[in-house]
């Protein structure tokens, strides 16, 4: 495994596609603004599947198709995303772990237009040949 090239990626930051979140038209229950407010919430929350879809899209673009067969992701949802909020998926490369495994680990998170973190976690993927597709800044 080209651990030298993996080492060189440590600390690199990745930003996925920035989007304006929109409530799906058939959203119900907790995603319904009226129902959610009636239960004491701030408003209808965008379903957390939205966050997951955007983060995994970012990781697929970063790692390439190997994500389908060697991807791992863990996310904790810590704050709600509201309708029309800006959604920004991000990641930072931690490094290869376990050493020599060829598996690249990343801190992942997503935030809104205020810089508030909505979800945090870790992801990892095997990186054959130490090559990733890109997106790094």
């Amino acid at each position, binding site marked *: 495994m080209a651990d030298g090239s993996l080492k060189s990626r440590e600390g690199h930051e990745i930003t996925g596609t920035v989007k304006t979140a929109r409530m799906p038209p058939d959203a119900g229950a907790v995603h319904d603004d009226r129902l959610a407010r009636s239960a004491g919430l701030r408003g209808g929350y965008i379903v957390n599947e939205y966050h997951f879809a955007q983060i995994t899209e970012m990781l*697929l673009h970063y790692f390439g198709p190997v994500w389908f067969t060697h991807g791992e992701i863990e996310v904790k949802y810590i704050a709600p995303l509201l309708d029309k909020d800006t959604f920004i998926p991000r990641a930072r490369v931690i490094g290869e772990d376990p050493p020599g495994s060829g598996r690249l680990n990343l801190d992942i998170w997503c935030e809104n237009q205020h810089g508030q973190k909505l979800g945090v976690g870790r992801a990892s993927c095997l990186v054959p040949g130490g090559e990733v597709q890109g997106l790094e800044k």
Partner: protein
Amino acid sequence: MNKSQLKEAIDAIEVHFATLRVGQSARQEHVYTGEEVRGYASRYDIPYPGSYVSAQGELLVPPGMVFMRPAATFGITDANAPPQARLGIYTQTHRWYLKPVYVGHKVLFDGEIIDTYERRGFFYLAVKWEAKDEDGEVLARGEEWHTLGFVRKT
């Protein structure tokens, strides 16, 4: 939502929560159709098919679709239950992807409750699951944490 509606929702959640047992299992099978996958992509603003095509040109299911839904599987599914007691909020997820999932192929899910607990007025359910193809090959596995409903017991 007035106090009696809140109580009705909380009561429904508590009654259902009391029936859940660690080790309780469920099995489901699912075929992700092209229409379903395109609907997901549209709903979550994901370009499709985009990167979701195999080297052989077969359409793939976005990984975000491949999981067992804890509340839809083990939660309150009675359509007559208060809406605030049904489904709930994802709080955490951990998933491993081992093989691509193809559109139109059957996927078999086996899930099991691994924890139930009450915290700060919410009732939680944790589930682990495994997805296999028809040959028994593991496609993905995961663990999900979810609330039962979205009202808080005060």
